[in-house]
């Protein structure tokens, strides 16, 4: 992963012909990325529950079976452990499986295969059986769905040695990160923020780095989505858009917030994180998952380790509560909302030693 910035994803894969910019929803961007991955790599396979004929309950795989055939894109029986266990065998046979679990909460039945097999087979086999498996998980909350349809499993996955974890925050990121992840030789958990599937945005096909991005972006590492001087907001997935909103609101009060899209939740880009907070001297981490033992703790601790001397206040975490993901309206209370994030920012800005 470390040297991977050299190959800048899509642009390389497609040669040097410029492909321009399009307005796409994240659903369309993901669908496009899968289509291109299937076209480029005859060993790539897309499968899962209802991924074939239906095109997935979120239509991410729409049209792919018709285009690439029932051998490359197919429905499986309704069994997540089966889907992931089968992926291991396909990877051993030289394929690049891109399975889907239908919703975050239904990754749990597959945890044994993910943790004990997918994450460890390269190690166990001493590098002779790599696991180029890209597991797509429609993730996080925000769509008023039934139980188990709004879970945030990043802390679980990030803790597992042998896995990499990534989450896109917008259509552009979705396109480039999926194309990148699905061409890696290691297992990547690809967490799609389902509440953002239908939001449109500009996708620059030629470069993972959008025009005007404050940092030189690449499909690896974190990305500064908005530069600021007073405080760093760290987020991923659907929370990035919310943090950008918060930054706009704060700007009205003269507070200049830097928003960092972590993108890769494993490995975490410590350097970009540290550079940002060394500049702003204050940080708030935002995520939907419950507080305790969430990935926010890791991010906060990495910041504290790297910036202990410059930090003006302890890193604040604004997260879901330590409660099961709730139903209906309570969702708005559970997911960090603008008010709660602003309160957190205020606490950090007003922090006084002593």
């Amino acid at each position, binding site marked *: 992963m470390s040297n991977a910035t050299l190959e800048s994803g899509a642009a390389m894969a497609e040669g040097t012909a410029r492909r321009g910019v399009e307005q796409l929803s994240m659903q369309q961007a993901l669908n496009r990325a899968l289509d291109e991955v299937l076209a480029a790599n005859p060993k790539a396979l897309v499968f899962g529950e209802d991924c074939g004929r239906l095109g997935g309950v979120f239509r991410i795989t729409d049209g792919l079976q018709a285009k690439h055939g029932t051998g490359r894109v197919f429905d499986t029986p309704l069994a997540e452990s089966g889907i992931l266990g089968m992926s291991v065998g396909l990877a051993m046979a030289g394929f690049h499986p891109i399975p889907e679990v239908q919703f975050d*909460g239904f990754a749990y039945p597959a945890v044994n295969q993910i943790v004990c097999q997918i994450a460890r087979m390269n190690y166990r086999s001493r590098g002779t059986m790599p696991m180029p498996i890209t597991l797509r998980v429609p993730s996080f909350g925000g769509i008023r769905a039934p139980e188990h349809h709004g879970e945030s499993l990043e802390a679980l996955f990030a803790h597992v040695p042998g896995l990499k974890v990534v989450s896109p925050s917008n259509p552009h990121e979705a396109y480039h990160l999926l194309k990148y992840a699905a061409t890696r030789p290691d297992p990547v958990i690809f967490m799609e923020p389902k509440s953002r599937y239908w939001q449109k945005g500009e996708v620059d096909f030629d470069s993972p780095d959008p025009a005007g991005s404050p940092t030189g972006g690449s499909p690896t590492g974190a990305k500064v989505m908005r530069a600021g001087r007073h405080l760093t907001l760290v987020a991923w997935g659907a929370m990035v858009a919310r943090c950008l909103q918060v930054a706009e609101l704060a700007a009205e009060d003269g507070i200049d917030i830097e928003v960092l899209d972590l993108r890769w939740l494993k490995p975490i880009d410590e350097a970009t994180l540290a550079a940002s907070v060394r500049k702003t001297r204050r940080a708030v981490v935002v995520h939907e998952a419950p507080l*305790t033992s969430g990935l926010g703790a890791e991010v906060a601790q990495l910041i504290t380790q790297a910036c202990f001397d410059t930090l003006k206040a302890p890193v604040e975490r604004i997260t879901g*509560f330590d409660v099961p993901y709730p*139903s209906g309206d309570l969702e708005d209370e559970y997911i960090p909302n603008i008010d709660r994030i602003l309160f957190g920012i205020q606490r950090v800005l007003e922090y006084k030693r002593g």
Partner: protein
Amino acid sequence: MDTSPSPLNGNDAGHLSGPHAEPLTAEQLRELYSLMVAVRHLDTSAIAWQRQGLIPGYAPELGQEAAQVGSGYAVDTTRDFVFPTYREMGVARAMGVDMVAYMSTHKATWHGGLYNPIESRLAPIQAVVGGSVLHAVGWAHGQTLDQADGVAMTYFGDGASSQGDIHEAMNFAAVMKAPVVFFVQNNGWAISVPTERQVAGGSVAARAAGYGMPALRIDGNDVVAVAEATRRAFAHARAGNGPVLIEAMTYRRGPHSTSDDPGRYRSLNEERDDAGEDPLERFRKQLLADGIADDAFFAEALAAAKAEEDDIRAGIQALGSRPGTEMFDLVFQETTPALQAQAASWREESEHV
């Protein structure tokens, strides 16, 4: 399709034992019909509610009324316990569960539903496919340990049959001879995947023999057949003979849920050909032919169903959101300082006090 329940297994276990129940009386048959009409009416109404914005989503059971009402009707709520999926509205209704409390889950008021599962003898609504089947086995084994005579009935679909937990449940139940009725509604589909690409061998009931467990594969659109098979299965399990599996062959006539679009994976012609006769209409004709009910009775049943739906809709409309404190208060029996602190900060920041 053969309408009489027939044991599938050639082995000994294939013959159900336990006391034989009396055939259903005319009164009971009419009651079954009234239940089916009530369920049909509420089910189709719920889709309308969703279109009108009263509820955010719903999982219809159109076409499965006979399977659900017939089996739910066989439950003895003084001692049995039922474990539903997300699609057992008809079972709940047949068991006499409070329907506002039940339907509240579809208003996204509370995931598991607002009914009291202990009093209703119906476990909370379950969104994990196959998730509760093992619970039934545990509950049933508890009856054995307590030397009590309750039976657990657990529902699952043809799709769910692929889950590992289903196998573990059947094996545990059969090893422990737990009093469980595994009630499979094979409605032909798991969202977009038809049974033939889901269930290797084509029959969930055929799996039972491998556990030495008797199974009945029945016409799930014949409410009388369903009720009688379920009673036989309960009697068998209650008598200490261990678990039984029933596969009720039926058809999901509607979409998987209100956000599904079946046109993407099956045609209207296929639906018509595969669905067979509407179980409600079929039962109506049978009652008429047998002289058990007449048009006046049917009209009355429909009127009652409509009145019932009015009440339930009013109840659903009146349901407010649950107070946010429940998020914190219902996690544990004994709360924790960290959770109390989170509740306090939530209260402060949300209520701006």
